[in-house]
């Protein structure tokens, strides 16, 4: 049966929430991200309002560059607690239409409404209804793409932002994608894009026209998958379960640091945050990845797979530290550290033969989780982190 998939993407989410809550920011360029410190700030732009985009400000841009482009903007630090509360309200509205809601991030989700077309009408009608509810109840706007699969829906939602609704009729996916630049395909970065362009493949349609075999020869392992996407074919299901494939945290230091103790403590703090989220989502990770960026921006990642799936800082931290020791040399100035857990699997499963130590770690961790839930992230920390870490 033909599926109907919606991709719902909140417009400039963090900035929009701030503009909604602070009428004085409306109509002004709002930039949510790191502290710009008069242009000397570090870190990046998380989101910016459409007013800011007119100045050339983009998300993931260094905050110093944003400051240069738009010195008169309203610069705000992200209030994640507020955004995640609003995000919960958005997801709540979405789940009023179907159980099959797959949140991709705080401001983005896929919906499979195939089964509720008889109840609510065709995809386009459902999209109008949910946009209307988001606007009426939350005073925010969302762009929605409607298509027969996730990929096409996602491309569609992005096409007429902000406050857009784009419907791709069944059977017209390939035609819809054909004129788009090749870089729109998931998994094609700037380098691959340049390489393909040099070969005369600049649009999605041109890639589709190559055929599967040629695409695989050009693009290696992922060629066939990319070719299928280019043809508008994507059979990935919308999964309402734990949608995220990895859980990670990273921090850019205020000033590059070579202080081993401080770096170590930052890793411990990041490991703690990652482990806490693993437990919160009821999953365990089999792989720990360290991201390590030096002051000259050379970035290395190192990963290690574990024999056992883990969900405590006691298990994540030693691995992260060991990977770090493999990269760090005395005197090396570090700009950014990140810890990511992936290879997620459902918690539980294998029981432990010697539970005392791990169970004690876990019990302690659970008690700490409870304190954080009730009193916030600053309510409890490790003694070794007092004063020594980098606020993420």
């Amino acid at each position, binding site marked *: 049966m033909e599926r109907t998939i919606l991709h719902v993407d909140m417009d400039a989410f963090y900035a929009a929430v701030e503009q909604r809550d602070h009428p004085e920011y409306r109509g002004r360029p709002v930039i949510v991200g790191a502290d710009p410190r008069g242009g000397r700030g570090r870190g990046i732009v998380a989101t910016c309002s459409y007013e800011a985009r007119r100045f050339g400000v983009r998300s993931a841009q260094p905050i110093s560059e944003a400051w240069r482009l738009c010195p008169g903007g309203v610069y705000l630090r992200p209030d994640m607690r507020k955004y995640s509360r609003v995000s919960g309200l958005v997801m709540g509205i979405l789940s009023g239409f179907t159980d099959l809601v797959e949140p991709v991030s705080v401001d983005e989700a896929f919906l499979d409404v195939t089964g509720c077309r008889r109840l609510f009408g065709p995809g386009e009608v459902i999209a109008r209804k949910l946009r209307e509810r988001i606007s009426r109840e939350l005073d925010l706007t969302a762009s929605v793409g409607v298509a027969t699969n996730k990929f096409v829906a996602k491309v569609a939602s992005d096409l007429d932002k902000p406050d857009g609704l784009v419907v791709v009729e069944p059977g017209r996916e390939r035609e819809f994608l054909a004129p788009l630049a090749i870089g729109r395909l998931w998994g094609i970065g700037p380098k691959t894009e340049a390489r393909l362009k040099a070969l005369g493949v600049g649009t999605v349609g041109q890639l589709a026209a190559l055929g599967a075999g040629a695409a695989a020869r050009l693009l290696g392992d992922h060629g066939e998958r990319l070719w299928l996407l280019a043809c508008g074919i994507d059979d990935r299901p919308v999964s309402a379960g734990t949608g995220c494939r990895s859980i990670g945290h990273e921090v850019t230091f205020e000033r590059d640091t070579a202080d081993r103790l401080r770096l170590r403590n930052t890793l411990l703090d990041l490991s703690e945050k990652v482990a806490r989220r693993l437990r919160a989502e009821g999953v365990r990770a089999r792989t720990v990845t360290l991201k390590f960026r030096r002051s000259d921006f050379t970035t290395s990642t190192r990963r290690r797979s*574990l*024999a*056992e799936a883990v969900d405590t800082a006691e*298990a994540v931290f*030693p*691995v992260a530290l*060991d990977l770090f020791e493999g990269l760090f040399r005395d005197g090396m100035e570090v700009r950014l550290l990140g810890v990511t857990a992936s290879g997620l*699997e*459902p918690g*539980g*499963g*294998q*029981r*432990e*033969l*010697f539970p005392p130590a*791990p169970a004690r770690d876990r019990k302690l961790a659970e008690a700490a989780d409870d304190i954080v839930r009730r009193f916030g992230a600053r309510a409890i920390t490790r003694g070794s982190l007092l004063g020594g870490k980098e606020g993420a």
Partner: protein
Amino acid sequence: MKFTVTRNSLLNELNLVQGVIEKKSTIPILSNILVEASAEHLDIAATDLDVTIRCGCPARVDAEGTTTISARRLFDIVRLLPDGADIEISLLENDWVELRSGNSHYKIVALPKDNFPTIPETGPVVAYIPGSLLRSMIQRTMFAITQEESRYSLNGALVALLPDQIRMVATDGHRLALVSRSMEIPGLDAEIKSLIPRKTLVEILKLIGDQDSMVEFGRDDNNLFFGVGSKRLISRVLAGQFPNYELVIPRENDKFVIAATKPLGDAIRRAAVMSDEKLKAIRLAFRSGTLELSASSAEAGESREELEVEYEGEALQIGFNPVYLLDFVGACATDTISISIKDSETQGLLRPVGSSDLDYQYVVMPMKL
């Protein structure tokens, strides 16, 4: 330095040292073996700084001397030379080594011995263990050692030499293999407990080979020593506290199943094909006279198979990691095994039925289904 050895005796020794040499060592000299010619003998040593092996073979020595040669390269050359050939090796200037055998002629880059790590001295022998016994004990426990390097104290097997028995235990925290044998150990005057790293166990197996000679065992504060004939294995002691394994050996398992080993192993393998890729569990359902094995996964489908077993008791279901069960099935070496369980939450105990004089127990923690 100049000596002549037979290709076969040198090949034996080179074969033995390959396992110790680290394939990816960042310290170049550790890829080399120390070669020392003196009197009528060639001594060879290899080390990765944790495990060191010393062996050698008779040689006709024309000039005494020492150097170090790439273990891998020398092995590759020697194994390709014809069976029964003689090999003449001599040290040239600039630390090169010349190797001649029949019409073959090599010049090999070597490294001076000065940078080779100091080989630890072997301490006094404190016990003698029959080689065949040590071999079967290692074979029955080694697979249960954890693969996770960060669980340091589980990275090896515990060997306990007690006044009336010898015992070896290994675990990864999910299952535990324990093998023991009642005997008086020659040479032993005080109880000894040592953690032997996995790599050392592998090398001990090679050292013993298929022979039944006595293995000399010694230790000091830092190292363990194993000797077979003139060969010596020196291993750093694995530090850390091995868990209190005796506490987890179940004593109250009151439901007993007797199953034929091979059919059980085959059934587990067939059922496991359909186990969830991440959870990797199979379900064992015991009913009077039958064991039903099943597995399912949302992506793949499901499997079910019935096996006749000896079982009288209430119906019970328990989940296990099939790999853990198969490890025991492969190691137990008897036609029949027993599985005892209490309930679906606590550990099961597997044992060989009608076994030899080795007492073999295998404890497996179940999985939540």
